[in-house]
């Protein structure tokens, strides 16, 4: 029910594994995590959302904020998501055009622009 976050490094990418619910209450924790990673010099992020049960617009806003931060350092932010109900939220807000969305962490880590 709450938000879980863990990070690991794969090559030059930092994978953020997110689980639980990202909403108006928990999204600030995700924001803090992304800000901290960028401040520490991690500019190529992969956010693994396979364990996310719920995502709302507050969460979308945090991801967009993260994307802006990494782009300021010529970095990247890729998402991993296969869940239709989560993908739908990206589609109706037009954000599928903003984020590269991958089927697996391996695919996201291997991807280049």
């Amino acid at each position, binding site marked *: 029910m709450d938000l879980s976050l863990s990070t690991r490094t794969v090559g030059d990418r930092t994978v953020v594994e997110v689980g639980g619910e990202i909403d108006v209450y928990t999204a600030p924790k995700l924001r803090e995590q992304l800000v901290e990673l960028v401040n520490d010099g991690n500019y190529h992020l992969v956010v693994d959302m396979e364990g996310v049960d719920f995502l709302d*617009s*507050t969460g979308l806003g945090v991801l967009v904020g993260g994307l802006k931060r990494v782009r300021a350092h010529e970095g990247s932010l890729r998402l991993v998501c296969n869940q239709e109900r989560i993908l739908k939220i990206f589609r*109706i807000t037009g954000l599928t055009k903003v984020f590269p969305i991958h089927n697996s962490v391996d695919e996201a880590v291997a991807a280049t622009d």
Partner: protein
Amino acid sequence: MATVELRFSALPEHVRTARLVAAAVARRAGVDESVLDELRLAVGEACSRAVALHQRNGVDGAVRVALTEQEKRFLIEVADEAGPAHAAGAAANGGDPEDEDALGLAVITGLVEDVEVGNGSDGGVIRMSWPVTPISVAV
């Protein structure tokens, strides 16, 4: 009168409760299982927006969620007490994608066919409704 009415202090930690209650009452009212996820999300968005309006306007108060079972529709009203709405709905057109208000309204209007963003006595009101599937056996 509403079937179930919920009032909570305009704080983010209570939005989840409102989502869960709305989905539970909607399920019982006969709203199709396939749209319950959308309903839950839409109610969450409406409540998050109400909470944000309270915080932005620096006012205390409560968010009211009224869940009403009608013959053919299930009606949800989310009302805030954040004062006169500042052109409610104006943010839905374009704007900064990081603007969570715009995103929230985009999600609601994208998900819900019957939605109306208006003004109530103390602030904004979002009204949404979903069809109710007649069920023969209600346990």
